[in-house]
């Protein structure tokens, strides 16, 4: 009964989406405010029905109702509750449910919190949202219905893919989707503005919090996925330039660019047409990301669906939404009025520089990811574009961006003082030079350029600190006055500093691990020792352990410093899941400060020896710590008073007298 209710609720949601997608548009044509105001309550109702549908599916998963095919195929009653719940989105159908659930959630938020939006803009934006939702409802109902029943219910399910049985599954996909789908809001607002043919600085102020929120979620979503892959796949890599990873990186790059160009638009009224384009591109890349991951055109652990009809359906969605949006843009964008003037050396100029490099870097990732698909379609040749390509293209584009980043916040709007900014960054630059020298002095191994990477990372971090120091005038005024100034600083300024600092932290982590990480692969027997860095590991032997739905063969290792001082124990294991007859490697991590020891086991040999992989990862935690800084920075910026108070609008009396547009 419950699955049927869920199915039915989803169909009702489709009906509501069609109403929400048409009525407001008709209302705008006929200047009928009543029709336009239909959008908000319908968006709320739609949310209620999708939430019901989602809850129905969740209920089936949590109670292990194996009469539902989707639950039978992806769950097992022996799994702990958190995996029984999160396996809902560990498969194609369920992940699409999560997608639409988040989509309507955002739609409902716009309906509730968008009370100060102009009627027409809100109505149009919600209508566009509804069209996106309708397309995805159709997709789910026609090609990927999660509520299909089996006539005779099996006693036990086929279990979730063991690689996905991890707390990472509870975190990574929802955060990633919050990011992807969050960009649908800026997309809808962009389309609404194009439909109206009118846009102003207030538009950017309305859209910015949504972009910021989506960007924050996407940032931690990507970082979470990276950490998950790092410890779960047993290879110790944090980024593989896998197409699926690239699929999430592209919207992030475009979203970051959008975040910055929207600032220019809000503050200075410039870059309007460009910002609209970025809003369209960011969501288009999110859709392409969904397509790449879900259609099965790319082979990876994420490819749940290999059914070609789904691929064609998603392709149709892509063509209609991206093609339609870009056509509308080409047709209507010339109507939008151009914004203000600014000198090349200015805050605006710096943000344009940022946008230029971010979008270009995004384009190289796009080409590298899709070129193999295009080539296979055209010539049949199968190729792979691997890390060397991306390192050779993405790296050179990102380095100048990093080097220039600290200058941006120190420049004034309209006309900046490059020399002044450089003077203020002198201390940061000196710090960077010291870091380079120190890196050369400490590490003799590794690439020659690596210390310069460290230098840039330190420059970025010190630059972010300089920004705050300049604003609070610390060291120049008495401490108490500086603290008072710090308290009075707008939160968005703190947000910028935090996020930029985070970029530096991540960069430092990446450079350290890539240049100075070490690796040992060996076959060892009980009693053997392994040396890496300043550590010595001794292997105490293997033992067995049973989990709820798996068996573990655990290797126990004692870790000591070279001097003999005990540091801790590491217990990597090989985990076998009988339901799928599949084994996974559970790596053991030992965190020391921001560095980690990483140990994973291979298949034990009959003679009792075990192959092991041991890595020393210097500063590796910084990679993800940087993302946390970025998230916090985004949050601070989001809590800025300016965004909470809302956009300026004409006095109420005047608004009443104006005819509805």
């Amino acid at each position, binding site marked *: 009964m419950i699955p049927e209710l869920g199915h039915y609720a989803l169909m009702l949601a489709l009906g509501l989406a069609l109403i929400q997608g048409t009525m407001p548009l008709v209302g705008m044509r006929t200047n009928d405010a009543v029709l336009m105001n239909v959008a908000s309550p319908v968006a709320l109702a739609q949310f209620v029905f999708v939430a019901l549908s989602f809850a129905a599916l969740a209920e089936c998963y949590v109670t292990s109702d194996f009469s539902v095919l989707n639950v*039978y195929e992806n769950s097992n009653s022996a799994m702990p509750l958190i995996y029984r719940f999160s396996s809902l989105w560990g498969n194609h159908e369920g992940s699409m449910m999560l997608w639409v659930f988040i989509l309507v959630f955002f739609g409902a938020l716009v309906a509730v919190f968008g009370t100060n939006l102009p009627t027409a803009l809100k109505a149009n934006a919600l209508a566009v949202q509804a069209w996106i939702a309708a397309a995805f409802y159709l997709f789910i109902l026609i090609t990927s219905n999660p509520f299909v029943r089996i006539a005779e219910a099996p006693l036990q399910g086929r279990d979730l893919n063991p690689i996905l049985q991890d707390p990472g599954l509870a975190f990574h996909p929802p955060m990633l989707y919050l990011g992807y789908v969050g960009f649908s809001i800026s997309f809808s607002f962009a389309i609404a503005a194009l439909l109206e043919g009118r846009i102003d600085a207030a538009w950017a102020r309305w859209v910015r919090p949504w972009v910021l929120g989506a960007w924050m979620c996407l940032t931690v979503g990507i970082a979470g996925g990276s950490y998950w892959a790092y410890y779960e796949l047993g290879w110790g890599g944090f980024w593989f330039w896998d197409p699926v990873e690239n699929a999430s990186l592209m919207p992030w790059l475009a979203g970051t660019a959008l975040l910055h160009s929207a600032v220019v638009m809000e503050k200075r009224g410039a870059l309007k047409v460009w910002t609209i384009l970025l809003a369209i591109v960011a969501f288009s890349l999110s859709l392409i990301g969904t397509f790449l991951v879900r259609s099965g055109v790319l082979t990876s652990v994420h490819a749940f669906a290999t059914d070609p009809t789904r691929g064609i359906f998603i392709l149709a969605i892509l063509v209609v939404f991206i093609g339609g949006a870009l056509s509308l843009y080409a047709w209507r964008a010339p109507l939008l009025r151009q914004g203000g003037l600014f000198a090349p050396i200015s805050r605006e100029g710096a943000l*344009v520089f940022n946008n230029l490099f971010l979008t*270009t870097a995004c384009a190289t990732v796009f080409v590298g990811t899709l070129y193999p698909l295009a080539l296979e379609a055209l010539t049949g040749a199968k190729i792979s574009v691997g890390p060397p390509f991306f390192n050779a293209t993405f790296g050179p584009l990102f380095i100048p961006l990093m080097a220039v980043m600290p200058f941006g916040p120190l420049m004034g709007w309209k006309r900046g003082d490059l020399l002044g900014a450089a003077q203020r960054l002198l201390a940061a630059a000196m710090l960077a030079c010291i870091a380079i020298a120190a890196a050369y002095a400490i590490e003799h191994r590794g690439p020659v350029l690596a210390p310069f990477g460290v230098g840039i990372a330190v420059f970025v971090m010190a630059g972010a600190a300089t920004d705050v120091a300049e604003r609070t005038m610390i060291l120049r005024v008495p401490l108490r006055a500086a603290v008072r100034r710090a308290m009075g600083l707008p939160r968005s300024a703190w947000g910028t500093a935090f996020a930029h600092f985070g970029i530096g932290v991540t960069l430092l982590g990446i450079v350290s691990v890539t240049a100075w990480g070490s690796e040992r692969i060996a076959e060892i027997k009980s009693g053997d020792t392994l040396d890496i860095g300043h550590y010595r590991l001794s292997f105490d032997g293997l033992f067995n352990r049973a989990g709820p739905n798996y068996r573990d063969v655990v290797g126990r290792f004692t870790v000591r410093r070279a001097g003999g001082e005990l540091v801790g124990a590491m217990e990597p294991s090989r985990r076998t899941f009988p339901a799928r007859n599949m084994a996974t490697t559970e790596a053991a991590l030992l965190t020391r400060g921001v560095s980690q020891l990483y140990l994973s086991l291979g298949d034990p040999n009959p003679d009792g020896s075990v192959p092991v992989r041991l890595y020393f990862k210097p500063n590796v935690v910084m990679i993800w710590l940087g993302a946390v800084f970025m998230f916090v920075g985004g949050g601070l910026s989001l809590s800025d008073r300016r965004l909470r108070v809302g956009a300026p609008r004409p006095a109420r009396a005047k608004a009443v007298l104006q005819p509805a547009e």
Partner: protein
Amino acid sequence: MTRKQRRLGLIGGGLGVLAIAVALMLNGFRDSIVFFNSPSDVVEKHVEPGTRIRLGGLVKDGSLSRGKDLRVRFEVTDGNRQIPVTYQGVLPDLFREGQGVVAEGALDGGGVFNADTILAKHDETYMPKEVADALKKSGHWKDDYAQRAAMPVGGASK
């Protein structure tokens, strides 16, 4: 500067960055692209020794032998041809005889493929797409690969 000059400057700068990016990409494509080949492709296309390729197929039954220091040797087959492969390191969890495999590396002068990476991004119910296509092409695709994948465990379905 007039508005027009500024805009031209902006467009010029943009095109400059784009040109650099295109140059980087073309360079990257020249140096770092790896072609996928089945064992038959390797023989028929006369892949030069030293060229980096991906070799995909099935691990031939009974061909796996382990040596010292985690050295392994096995043969990759597509039913028509076999290529001997050597690799040093820990094999992925899902590496098994009779299963699909993709190895990245280069041929040496004696026709032995020295792999430095063994890819195993597929689970047991899933064959790497390239390998499946190659097997279909060589006529050695068996439908039971797909069926085995779809078959529920423990005879739960009736």
